[in-house]
């Protein structure tokens, strides 16, 4: 692998940047691997990277039906935070946040992780009570949350409307200073390049169409490019997880919904942080290019169409203008949708299944980007050892029959 550096940039400038090495190979599928990862989004690529780099499993393939990172990884609004309520979730997202901090160095790839903080606004007495409870729980778990007043919010984000003229005046917020945003494409590409350098085969345009299962054990996958064998298969397919599970005769408690986002025309720097509100139902930040990055809730019906409905866009923009009236005349540039796999308790599933050797990592719904490195790391550990990593263990699919749910609806409402 060609390492990137400032010196390299200067050197390649003399060659008019025409001699950069390709970031990863485009290999033919082998007949057999030790581990197959289905799904080349951020989570799948991270899993492969850590498998090869940290857990010594180098004979790995990532099987992706489209191009790398073309699913929700490339469609999300890139918010990274860890202010979840319950201990299990806080551990998982904190583990991820710790990895984010050193990720650019580790991957030798600038993922543009920017810890610019996240505000979660409260507009009612009940909102404020929930915020206080969550902040207290966060602090016990070592998450740097605090409750801030409207005046403090105004200092952090001067253009926000904290007046009483608003329909839902802002009463306060929780503030996680170590939260922020990262560049989603760079995360996928960085993990892909790193995995490839450690010998992982990235098989693009390769769709899994079925599983080879005998005597309750997985033996490999069927794809449009032929059968590939492996005794360990990890599915990391976000909105299509349920479709894959069905091929293996497994039912998952997931529902796939469109989730939309939109970006505005580029503006001069105007926002310092990420502002989200469950109550008026929208959130906004500003990318380094200058566009406002805007999102809200899912479209309420099931859908695999990777597009959303207009009423949802309208509601989203109403919420943004409610928080930032000065944006009322900003023009929107692009709008798109991803298919998110929502789970009944708003927490992911990292689990073995009744088919031996077949694992699922899914159910991240509207909020899995922030977990990309952590999810990949603990899932890789689980696949390598054949036992779920302690951080992943509470997220077993069994919880929907034992009742040990981890209810994060409060921390994951409109906040992704």
């Amino acid at each position: 692998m060609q390492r990137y550096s400032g010196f390299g940039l200067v050197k390649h400038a003399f060659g008019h940047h025409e001699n950069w090495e390709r970031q990863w190979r485009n290999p033919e599928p082998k007949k057999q691997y030790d581990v197959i990862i289905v799904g080349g989004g951020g989570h799948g690529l991270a899993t492969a990277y850590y498998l090869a780099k940290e857990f010594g499993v180098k004979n790995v393939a990532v099987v992706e039906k489209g191009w790398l990172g073309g699913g929700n990884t490339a469609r999300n609004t890139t918010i990274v935070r860890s202010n979840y309520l319950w201990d299990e979730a806080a551990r998982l997202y904190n583990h991820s946040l710790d990895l984010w901090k050193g990720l650019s160095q580790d991957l030798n790839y600038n993922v543009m992780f920017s810890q610019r903080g996240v505000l979660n606004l409260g507009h009612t007495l009940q909102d404020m009570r929930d915020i206080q409870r969550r902040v207290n729980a966060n602090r016990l778990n070592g998450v740097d949350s605090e409750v801030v007043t409207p005046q403090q919010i105004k200092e952090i984000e001067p253009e926000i409307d904290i007046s009483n003229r608003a329909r839902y005046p802002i009463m306060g917020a929780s503030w996680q200073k170590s939260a922020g945003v990262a560049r989603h494409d760079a995360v996928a590409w960085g993990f892909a390049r790193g995995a490839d350098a450690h010998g992982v085969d990235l098989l693009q345009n390769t769709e899994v169409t079925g599983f080879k299962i005998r005597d309750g054990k997985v033996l490999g996958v069927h794809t449009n490019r032929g059968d590939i064998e492996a005794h360990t298969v990890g599915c990391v397919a976000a909105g299509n997880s349920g479709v894959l599970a069905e091929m293996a005769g497994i039912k998952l408690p997931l529902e796939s919904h469109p989730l939309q986002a939109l970006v505005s025309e580029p503006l001069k720097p105007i926002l310092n942080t990420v502002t989200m509100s469950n109550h008026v139902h929208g959130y906004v930040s500003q990318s380094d290019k200058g566009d406002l990055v805007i999102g809200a809730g899912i479209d309420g019906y099931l859908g695999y169409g990777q597009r959303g409905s207009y009423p949802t866009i309208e509601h989203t923009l109403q919420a943004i203008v409610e928080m930032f009236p000065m944006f009322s005349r900003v023009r929107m540039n692009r709008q798109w949708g991803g298919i998110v796999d929502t789970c009944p308790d708003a927490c992911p599933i990292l689990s073995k299944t009744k088919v031996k050797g077949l694992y699922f990592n899914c159910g991240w719904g509207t909020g899995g980007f922030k977990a990309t490195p952590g999810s990949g790391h603990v899932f890789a550990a689980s696949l390598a050892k054949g036992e779920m990593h302690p951080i992943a263990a509470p997220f077993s699919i069994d919880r929907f029959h034992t009742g040990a749910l981890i209810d994060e609806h409060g921390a994951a409402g409109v906040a992704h």
Partner: protein
Amino acid sequence: MFYIYCPYCKEHREEEEFHPRGQAHLLRPEDPENTSDEEWGDYLFFRDNPRGIHHEMWVHSVGCRKFFNITRNTVTYEILETYPMGEQPTITAETERVRKEQGVQAADGGWQTVGARPENKALNEETSS
């Protein structure tokens, strides 16, 4: 944007007036005391999530406020029929498969949708409002 036929109001109305409420035809276990954890979990949390034909409950929340069912394709978003509570769908994944095998071209409805039951002429007619 969906244009949905409410089987009670007998009119096509815009999506904004309705709310989706998830999978249709779910039955609460009849004998809760003797229902296993497995069965309770399945009833509470496990839903159909198909790429294709799906039967779902909607409510005409700012109209007549009644619940009814829709058969819809989750990929093309085409609405194939709407029918009142207590009735069964006439179009299912199975009937669609047969239709395809027999070479009948299913309408690619995209966003615009019809909605009323194909065999019921009265429902298919637009009512002026």
